[in-house]
């Protein structure tokens, strides 16, 4: 740019005159045109088509334009003021004027000519800082710093609290030419917004502070509209990631549950409320259980959104799991097992096949627990659970139902024989399995009770009870496993009360021995006595052995009672001996449990060991069938006992199935013919022949023969003819207490 502009020449008088004459000519021409056209013409065009607007029309248009703009400005509810570059108010609309007049008393009068910036600068009180801020804004617009400035502020100085929004914009592109100030009362809008914000705030406070996840999707569930922050805590993923990819919701579901949830989602009507429970896998790999409830939101009868509440129910699931599973082994507990068995039975019933239920008792478990400690016992239980699961092939078939009891269900049984083979094979495998506890290998034996569906019960409870009854029976018998037989239930159930009474009877010494004489058939002299056990129940008097012997055997009490009988019988004999009477040998019955007991020989030795020649006072009566159960063991045991001087009699001979070859090898002294053969002698020649053969046989083997149950003179005569050695029965004498026996049969020497 040049520093010096061109010199301006003074305008000459001549030029001034020329211009004045031109203007005069223009006026004349215009007046002539007006006259010519009668004032009715607005424009005139020259030859080149350039339109000249006549002055009348010009004025008219100018006024009309200004009126239009004024009308528009006055129609606006906003208060508008035109400010010059110094902030002076040049023009205002009616709304501004109305406000100024109405609030003049409040010191807010701001008519044309006043300086708005100064009014703002002078403001004091509560509104002062807002006013100063607004003044700064106006100045920055006037200074060209910004092209628009807005400020929203409350006016406390008014009779009622009002809210205003002032907007300042430059009047033209050149900011210095002034500015338009527009002020709007936004109180009502603010109130609406505030209440919207308030309800939004309440919703957020609710949604963001509950532990459940609140969520909202569109009706098709394709876009996630909202999810509350608890999602991040439970899912371990950010809310943002879910908004970005709503499918994450399904992807997070555990693969084992995903298909089920997806299927349910598809079959679900969008208009249905529904609840679903499933597992999710968090990014860190942990698994949580989720319970998700969904509710449709309707608008105009159509579902347009779906709202839901999802909660973490892992703890609840866990406690439910504890209610149905054994915490130690992880197997189902009794409750769940019976439920599962019931399902299997329904399937078996409809398919028409059998099922088997096994209850398994670990033998000597209590010993292991007591001697090695409970942690070791727990370790064993876990190993047993693993073994059973592995052998069953499916953990859902196995349960731990009790401290040392497990159960197993075989849902489909085609042949009962298969069950037997399975048990024998499995039990052998179990017995051979080395359980390692504290670096030591243990072999664990088990007893098994089996109940078959539908033979032993048609419902799960009954079947289970009966399998338990079977294992209970197996526990006290020599059998490793037992099938439930229907008659067994009655015995066990009915004898439970009796069992308790008998245990007390053992403790209180309520058992007594009665003695029945045996006499020589030829001389009629007393040859011996059989000790018979009686229970002197203080409430009911004497109880016959038929009522309780079986239970003593079932419960194992027979070991104690049998030992007591041996001791008492011998003590009676020794008492008689010392009392100076002819003391007969006393025969005592031996039960299966006693005979099988490893300590039986030692027990006998101990009983007779204290007194010289005591063995001569004792005879053991053992049933033929008991001996035959395990001949080899019986022979060894009986030989040892007989070597001590105690004699042995085979009881109830003829009811078992001994073969001649065995009979010859048995270390016995006496053979007692069962009472049924004695009774049968009266029925004819066959009966007599049978007894005759038995007697001949016994004599051939150098055995003494005693006939049992002799009740008639006729029987006596026949037995005498058949060369029977001795007899026992009511004909000669019933069992009586020791004192009576002594006074009645024993003569002093």
């Amino acid at each position, binding site marked *: 740019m040049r520093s010096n502009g061109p010199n301006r020449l003074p305008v000459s008088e001549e030029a001034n005159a020329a211009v004045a004459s031109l203007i005069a000519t223009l006026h004349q021409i215009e007046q002539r045109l007006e006259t010519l056209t009668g004032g009715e013409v*607005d*424009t005139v065009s020259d030859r080149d*088509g350039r339109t000249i607007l006549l002055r009348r029309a010009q004025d008219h248009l100018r006024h009309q334009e200004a009126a239009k703009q004024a009308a528009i400005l006055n129609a606006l509810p906003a208060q508008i003021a035109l400010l010059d570059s110094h902030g002076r108010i040049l023009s205002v609309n009616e709304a501004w004027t109305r406000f100024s007049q109405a609030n003049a008393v409040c010191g807010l009068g701001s008519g044309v000519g006043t300086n708005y910036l100064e009014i703002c600068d002078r403001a004091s009180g509560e509104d002062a800082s807002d006013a100063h801020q607004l003044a700064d804004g106006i100045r920055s617009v006037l200074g060209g710093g910004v092209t628009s400035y807005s400020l929203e502020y409350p006016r406390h100085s008014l009779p009622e609290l009002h809210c205003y929004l002032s907007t300042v914009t430059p009047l033209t592109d050149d900011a210095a030419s002034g500015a338009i100030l527009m002020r709007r009362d936004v109180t009502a809008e603010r109130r609406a917004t505030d209440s919207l914000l308030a309800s939004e705030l309440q919703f957020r406070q609710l949604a963001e502070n509950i532990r459940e996840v609140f969520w909202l999707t569109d009706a098709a569930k394709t876009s996630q509209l909202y999810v509350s922050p608890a999602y991040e805590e439970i899912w371990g993923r950010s809310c943002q990631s879910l908004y970005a990819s709503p499918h994450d919701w399904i992807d997070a579901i555990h693969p084992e549950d995903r298909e089920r949830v997806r299927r349910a989602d598809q079959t679900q009507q969008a208009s249905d409320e529904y609840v679903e429970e499933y597992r999710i896998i968090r990014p860190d790999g942990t698994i949580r259980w989720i319970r998700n409830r969904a509710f449709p939101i309707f608008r105009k009868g159509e579902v347009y959104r779906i709202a839901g509440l999802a909660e973490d129910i892992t703890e609840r699931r866990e406690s439910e799991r504890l209610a149905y599973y054994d915490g130690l082994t992880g197997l189902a507990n009794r409750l769940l097992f019976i439920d599962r068995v019931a399902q299997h039975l329904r399937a078996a019933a409809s398919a028409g096949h059998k099922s088997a239920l096994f209850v398994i008792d670990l033998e000597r478990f209590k010993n292991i627990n007591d001697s090695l400690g409970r942690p070791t016992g727990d370790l064993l239980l876990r190993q047993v659970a693993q073994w059973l699961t592995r052998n069953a092939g499916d953990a859902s078939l196995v349960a731990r139902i009790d401290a040392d009891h497990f159960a197993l269900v075989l849902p489909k049984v085609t042949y009962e024989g298969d069950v037997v083979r399975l048990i024998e094979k499995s039990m052998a495998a179990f017995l051979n399995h080395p359980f390692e506890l504290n670096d030591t290998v243990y072999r664990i034996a088990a007893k098994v009770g089996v109940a078959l569906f539908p033979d032993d019960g048609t419902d799960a409870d009954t079947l289970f009870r009966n399998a338990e009854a079977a294992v209970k029976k197996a526990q006290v018998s020599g059998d490793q496993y037992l099938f439930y037989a229907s008659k067994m239930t009655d015995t066990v159930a009915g004898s439970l009360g009796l069992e308790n009474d008998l245990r007390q009877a053992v403790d209180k010494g309520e058992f007594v021995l009665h003695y029945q004489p045996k006499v020589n058939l030829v001389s009629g002299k007393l040859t011996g006595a059989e000790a018979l056990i009686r229970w002197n129940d203080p409430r009911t008097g004497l109880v016959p052995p038929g009522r309780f012997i079986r239970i003593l055997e079932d419960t194992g009490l027979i070991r104690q009672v049998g030992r007591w009988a041996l001791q008492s019988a011998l003590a009676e004999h020794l008492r008689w001996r010392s009392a100076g009477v002819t003391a007969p040998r006393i025969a005592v019955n031996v039960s299966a449990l006693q005979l099988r007991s490893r300590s039986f020989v030692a027990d006998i030795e101990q009983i007779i060991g204290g007194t010289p020649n005591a063995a001569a006072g004792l005879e053991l009566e053992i049933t033929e069938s008991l001996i035959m159960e395990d001949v080899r063991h019986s022979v060894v045991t009986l030989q040892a006992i007989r070597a001590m001087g105690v004699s042995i009699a085979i009881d109830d001979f003829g009811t078992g199935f001994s073969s001649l070859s065995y009979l010859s090898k048995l270390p016995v002294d006496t053979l007692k013919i069962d009472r049924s053969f004695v009774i049968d002698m009266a029925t004819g020649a066959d009966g007599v022949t049978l007894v005759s053969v038995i007697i001949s046989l016994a004599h051939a083997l150098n055995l003494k023969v005693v006939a049992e149950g002799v009740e008639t003179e006729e029987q006596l005569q026949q037995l005498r003819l058949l060369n029977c050695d001795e007899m026992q029965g009511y004909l000669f004498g019933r069992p009586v207490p020791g004192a009576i026996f002594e006074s009645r049969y024993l003569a002093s020497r």
Partner: protein
Amino acid sequence: MSRVWDASESTMSRRGLFRFRMYIAGDALNSAQALANLDALCRAHLPDRHEVEIIDVFREPKLAMTDGIFMTPTLVKIAPPPIRRIVGTLSQTQRVLQALGLPT
């Protein structure tokens, strides 16, 4: 740009149709008066048989030039022939009717 005031063509007899073109200067006073007078005249004397095209010379100066229009407002009767031009506010109704060849 032009505006067309018309009656529904389907009911109109093409034979008695009066077609006008009115040249105006924006919202200027005389032009506005001319439009108002023409409207009144057509409704009174040519109901359902007139068609008016309005041309603002500020917007379409070339069209006015082509048509040989030197002043606004100017009314041109295009049909029926002969073509007639009337300059002014059309406030003297009798003279306008005569110029258009309509009965007074």
